[in-house]
């Protein structure tokens, strides 16, 4: 059982929900080409799926991933004067670009996890006819 799932459920949701939602929005927009054309219902489902993914991770991964998510959010204060979840689309894209270029592999790994998984889920939500082959 994930250690994260042993935390008060509501507390974990309150902390992670908005951050995961904005990370998903930004990275899916990056993959899809633009934020303005994104499907909100599919985005919401994707954010839910990502929160679920973190919850089922092995405990030695899930807790650090949750912590990294919070750190990513708060590091926005240094780059744009406000946490990631409160930034504009342009500011969020800039923070992602900074993390992609960071000399620390942890930053790329973090974005790779969110980027690949969220992209897959989002496009699966949009294109259910592509499942089952």
């Amino acid at each position: 059982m994930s250690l994260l799932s042993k935390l008060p459920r509501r507390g974990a949701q309150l902390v992670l929900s908005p951050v995961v939602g904005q990370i998903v929005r930004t990275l899916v927009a990056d993959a899809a080409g633009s934020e303005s054309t994104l499907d909100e219902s599919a985005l919401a489902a994707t954010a839910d799926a990502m929160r679920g993914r973190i919850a089922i991770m092995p405990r030695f991964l899930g807790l650090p991933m949750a912590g990294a998510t919070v750190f990513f959010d708060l590091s926005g204060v240094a780059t744009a004067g406000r946490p990631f979840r409160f930034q504009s689309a342009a500011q969020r894209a800039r923070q992602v670009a900074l993390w992609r270029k960071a000399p620390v592999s942890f930053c790329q790994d973090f974005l790779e996890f969110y980027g690949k998984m969220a992209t897959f889920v989002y496009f699966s939500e949009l294109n259910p006819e592509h499942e089952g082959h």
Partner: protein
Amino acid sequence: MRGTLHDCQILVIGSGPGGATTAALLAEAGHDVLMVEEGGHFVHDSAPAYSMAEMDQKYRNGGLTPAFGQTKVTYVEGRCVGGGSEINAALAHPPMASTLEDWRQRFRIDQFGLEPLGSHFEAVERECSVASMPGGLDPASMVIKQGADQLGWASSEVQRFWQYPSDGAGKGLRQSMTVTLVPRLLAAGGRLLPLTSVHKLRFRGGRAVEASATTRHADGRRERVRIRFDKVFVCGGPTQSPLVLRRSGIRGKVGDGLRLHPMVRVAARFDREVNDPAAGVPVQQVVEFKPDLTLGCSHAALPHLVMWLGGEVEDREAKLEAWPKIALFYVLVTGKGKGKVRNIPGFDESFTSYPCGDDDLASLGQGLHRLGTMLFQAGAVELFNPLPGRPSITRPDQLEQLRTGLPHGQLTISTIHLFGTCPMGEDRSRCVVDSWGKLHGAANIWVNDASILPDCTGVNPQLTLMAVARRNVAHWLDG
């Protein structure tokens, strides 16, 4: 110790290709067999193939299993009745005779090789309906064939563990363990206990006598379970078998020697349609450079393609609109590193590490160069750069950036083939089990899964692992 008690003559831990083969054959020989499986028992179409739902149901940790190292390698493991056979591409590729001979010599494995194993390969192919795809090759496979033919490289269709419909209607049926060996186990009077994780073995008088386990019920309740046995076959796979053994106090070389096939995927765009997910998993592989290097193509519906579209892509939206012109190809190499599987005190999960070093990156780089060369020969107009932040490759001379000096930590490297954490052989300085899977120094413990394959097969491993498991059980029954 309290808990629900089960008694059996033979306990089989794990229900993947090794465990299901072991359990079914032993039960059919008249033994009282109980097979336990950590994951759930799902029918073959319980979730769409390669979907998130399938990952949630049948993959360990929903597909998130990293092997840590200088360059992380993400691996995928089945965690369900049938194990990896329920989620893999079901490709059935016999090993090269030279690979088995190499193992026989290096690890001192008795009576081993393509010829001694021949009857077991035939039995697996017959009983699990290994067959070629009827009709012509799918479009992505045709790309492989055309490109390889242009370069004079040998390529061939790989057969699958698949029962194709005789009338050509429908997709047919994957011959996974839940369709083949598990029903045979149950028909022979064997028992199956899913959703049950074995923690460790307990000993008395030098013999393993009991397994302590936990069953997870659908309502969230956890039930302690004790399983008493006379003999035990540990078949949890290359990460879980060493985990159980090490938790049971059996250490030494257990969990060392992890070998794997590092793989890199590359999406490529053509002027024609090359991607038809409805055609199933592409089956053509370049075999020219086996066992060291395999070039092939992956199943890739739109969500998969978007996930693997790397680098800086111009006109991304327009290209994705025309996604049937994009297919996903892979480079798969025989890994040079040796990793480890260890327990983490206080946690149930394994910690897996693999040193994906300069040798592996060099192999992958050479492979990427060859793959790119072949794809351009087959008419590719754009290779989406597997290196993040780099522009697409649109000319063969631009492939040089992939050939040498690949940086650590940037490529997305994955694998689905792991081996070697409990290697078989009579060389006790490096082998955990003997030539027939019996744990060295143990009275009644055997290991019979991919962890005993001492090195990379260089080919899709399921056929080899099932033939070896079959051979080991036959030897056990003989004597």
